[in-house]
Each structure stands twice: as structure tokens, then as C-alpha cells.
């Protein structure tokens, strides 16, 4: 590694890890809720991340506005999430084998469609000037865009946490994670709740993709697939159906990826899988109980 280990380097790795963690969180939270509530292991979920990135790039190129790109990416994810639930997954609740085949197929289809529109090679994301700047905090330079992603992730977590904790929808979702049939027997149209969760989960994953483009400064068709594994590790570590668990797990996995990836590039995945194995051994249900 030649380069000396300096405080700014460590701080930067830390920040990088947090940003990666934020991206993982945006995918994993939806994945976790969808699994917790509907017992669907949605292998197509990360496809929405990629779509969010490409739609975000297209809208950014058309308008020059990053906020608009993020909103458009999220909206695309919401729409795709709705189509996926209503059109494909709904008839297969309870049938795990078919669900896995179906969502894997959907993942491939999403990917092929994306390449039909934008082609197979990577496309660079020419971020606006402000996003390339750094701001200095306590005398250390921080990349502005990374701070923006962190704030965004924090805001999303807070919003999801409050919605799950306080709103009628959130209470129903948490109840449904425990016992969906009983929720239905109490007079709630759980089918509609399922759709809403797919829509919100899709929006978050795609928002993650849209936010990832300017971070990596490039988008590519496999970017979703590459974060999917990390997201699954996060879900297992955090606990299925727990958004707080997803947040904590994401930061753990993001940080370990950043640090281990820098000092032992070959070891990043091994360390994360090892982390997951450790959690499975000690606390198979994950660090956090389902619910919030």
C-alpha cells in the first residue's frame, strides 16, 4: 500500500463507508420490509436501483438538475414496484419457489430492457460543478456530494422510522410483519398495503441508484447486481423486517467495505460474508427485531 495512513485518509474512508452504507440502506430497507411483510425474497429489487440510476442520469442530462434527477429516479422505482407487485408477484404469494424464479426472471428482464434503451456499456455521469466541490469542516476537506447523500439517507431513515412508528400505515405494516392474516381479519385490505410497500420500497431502491450515479460518476448495467449481495447481507445482519436493523447493518457493511476494500481489496466481500455468518451463528434472527 505505499501511501501513509493519515487522518484525512481515514476520515475519507469513513465518509466513503457511510455513503456506501446509505446506498445499501436504501436498497436493503425495502428488501427487508418486503420480506418481513410478504415473505417475498425479491431478487428483482436491485434491478430498480439500476433503473433509478439510469432514469436519474437521463433526467439530469435533460434538465441539469440533480434534485429533479433524484425525484425522477425514485418515481420510476415506485412505478416499477407497483407494476411488479400488481402484475407479477400478486398471484404467487405463498409460493416461494415460483417467487424466486419469477423475481430472478424479472431482474433479468429489467436488466435487458435497460440495455435495450441505454446500451450495455458504462455511461459517465457528468455531475454539476457544485457536486465536485469540497467543503472544509474542522480544517478537513469533505466532498460536498457525499455529505448530500448522507443527509439524504439520514432524512429517508428518519422519515421511514416515523412513518413506521407513528402512522396508521406504519402500525399496520408492523402488525402485518408479525401476522398478515390477522391484520386482514381485523378489516384491513392487506393487499393494498402490500402494493404500497412495494411502491415505497421500489422508490427507495431507485432513489439509491439515482444518488449512486453522481457518487460513482458513472452508471453501468450491473451496478444493481453488484450492490444486491451487500444488501442481502445487510438484511440478514439487521434482521428481516426491521428498518432500524437495515440502517445499522448497512453502515456496518458499508464501513467494512470501505476500510477493508482499501487496505485488503480482495478481502472486502469475505469480511462482509464473515460478518453475516457471525450474526447467523450468534443471533440467527438478526440484530434487530422485526418492526421498526
Amino acid at each position, binding site marked *: 500500500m505505499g501511501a501513509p495512513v493519515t487522518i484525512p485518509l481515514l476520515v475519507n474512508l469513513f465518509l466513503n463507508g457511510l455513503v456506501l452504507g446509505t446506498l445499501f440502506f436504501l436498497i436493503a430497507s425495502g428488501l427487508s420490509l418486503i420480506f418481513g411483510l410478504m415473505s417475498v425474497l425479491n431478487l428483482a429489487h436491485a434491478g430498480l436501483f439500476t433503473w433509478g440510476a439510469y432514469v436519474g442520469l437521463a433526467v439530469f442530462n435533460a434538465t441539469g438538475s440533480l434534485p429533479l434527477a433524484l425525484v425522477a429516479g425514485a418515481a420510476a422505482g415506485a412505478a416499477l414496484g407497483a407494476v411488479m407487485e400488481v402484475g407479477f408477484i400478486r398471484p404467487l404469494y405463498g409460493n416461494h419457489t415460483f417467487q424466486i424464479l419469477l423475481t430472478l426472471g424479472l431482474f433479468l428482464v429489467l436488466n435487458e430492457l435497460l440495455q435495450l434503451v441505454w446500451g450495455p456499456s458504462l455511461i459517465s455521469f457528468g455531475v454539476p460543478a457544485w457536486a465536485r466541490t469540497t467543503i472544509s469542516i474542522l480544517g478537513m476537506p469533505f466532498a460536498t456530494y457525499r455529505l448530500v447523500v448522507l443527509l439524504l439517507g439520514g432524512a429517508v431513515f428518519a422519515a421511514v422510522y416515523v412513518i413506521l412508528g407513528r402512522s396508521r400505515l406504519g*402500525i399496520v405494516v408492523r402488525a402485518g410483519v408479525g401476522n398478515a*392474516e*390477522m391484520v*386482514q*381479519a381485523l378489516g384491513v385490505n392487506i393487499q393494498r398495503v402490500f402494493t404500497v410497500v412495494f411502491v415505497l420500497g421500489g422508490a427507495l431502491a431507485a432513489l439509491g441508484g439515482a444518488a449512486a450515479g453522481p457518487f460513482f460518476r458513472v452508471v453501468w448495467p450491473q451496478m444493481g447486481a453488484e450492490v444486491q449481495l451487500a444488501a442481502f447481507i445487510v438484511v440478514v445482519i439487521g434482521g428481516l423486517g426491521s428498518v432500524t436493523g437495515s440502517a445499522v447493518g448497512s453502515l456496518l457493511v458499508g464501513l467494512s467495505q470501505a476500510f477493508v476494500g482499501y487496505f485488503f481489496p480482495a478481502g472486502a466481500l469475505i469480511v462482509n460474508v464473515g460478518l453475516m455468518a457471525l450474526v447467523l451463528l450468534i443471533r440467527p434472527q438478526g440484530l434487530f427485531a422485526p418492526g421498526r
Partner: protein
Amino acid sequence: MGWATLLLQVLELHAYIRQYHILQGVSFDVREGEVTVVLGRNGAGKTTTLRSVLGLTRIGRGEIRLDGLSLVGWRPHEIARLGVGYVPEDRGIFTQLTVEENLQVAERNRGNLRQRSGRIFDLFPDLYRFRHRRAGLLSGGQQQMLAIARVMVNPNRLLLVDEPSKGLAPILVRNVGEALREVAREATVVLVEQNLALAAHAGDRYVIIDDGRSVREGPMAEIAMDRQLQRVYLGVTERNGGLRALPWARR
């Protein structure tokens, strides 16, 4: 007096769980304002009968009518919203939610809970005391009370209550009996109950289900006197105490 109104009619019901033909002809009437007790041995199909009324099992043949309206093909939440409350055998408590949130999930129309929580908490002071506690931390008896309280959140026409005394100590069985009497004041009740004393105490009429078929129905007093009936369909013998418990019967 004439004929009592039939609130619920179950006619030649056949129900399936996956490929298994569980109910093979269940028929009975439930009169408005009464408590109808569903009796039968373990595995007879009592729970499946209640679940079928609520649309939770697949119905092959037969008819279920609530106030003349056929419920076949309706979805569970739609049936619930017609004013059908359910206290399931396993209590169906949301263990990760607080006591109060368990009640909130049940609220079918905004304002119901606020309007009725006073009465609920008067009846179940423990639930008030522990309203912010996770329901999974409650005792079995308290969870049963919560399951009953949950149906009191909304006005109901019909309550389906599945073995509320199951697994409870005798003192708690009495509390459950009192709670049931309270909810029965404003709704018609279908009660599955193996505890014959409680059944006789609470019930107006009975229906016996055996091996997936309804085999008899009548006024509750009839079964209290008929040891033959008890032995054949309920497995009650003098030794296991069924008869001794029966002097509790009101009629």
C-alpha cells in the same frame, strides 16, 4: 314471540385447506342476539368453520349468509367490515406492537377507538396499565383479554370467538367468561369452547361438529342433560369432570 331472526346461516359447507377436504357438510343457524356454542372433539373442524365464515379458508361448496347476504367469495377484510369480529384460537396478538397499537390496528373507522377505549379499559384495567408495553410481554391471560378487547374497538354484529379459555388457569377462565358476557351484550356470538362448564354458562344454543360435519344442534340445556351426547361427540366422561361441571348451567 315468533321466530328469532337468523343472523348467520351456514348451509352444507365444504371447506378445504390446501388439498385436504376438511369440512364436509356443516350446517347451522345462529340467531340474532344469542350465543351459539360450537362443540366437538379436537380436530373436528371447529376452527375451520369459524375461519370459513370470515373468508380465511377456501370454500368448495355450500353457503354462508350474514343477515341473508351471501359471504362466499368475499375477502376477509370485507367480511370483517360488515361487522364481524374475530378472536382466534392462537389469539393473533401482534407481539411486537404495544397493547395500544394492537387496538389501533383493529380500528375500522377513525374515532371508534377513542369512543370506546373508556369501556374497554374499564373492563380490562391491566390493559390500561400496560397500554404502552409490548404485547408480547403480557401474560397469556392478558393476551387473551387483549384479543377480546380488540374486537370491542368496533361495533360488531357478529363475533367469532375460538376457545378463549384454552390454556388459562381457572381463575382466568372466569374472567374470560365475564368479558364474553360483556361483549355478548351488544353482538351475536359464535363461541368455540371445549370447557363445557363455560360453554353451558355462556351459551344459548349449541352445534356439534364431528369429523368435518355438523351432527346436531339445539338449545344448550339439551346437551347439559344428555350424557350420551357428551360421551359420543365430545369425549366427556364422568371421570374427566365434564358432568360435574354442568350444574353451573343456567337452564
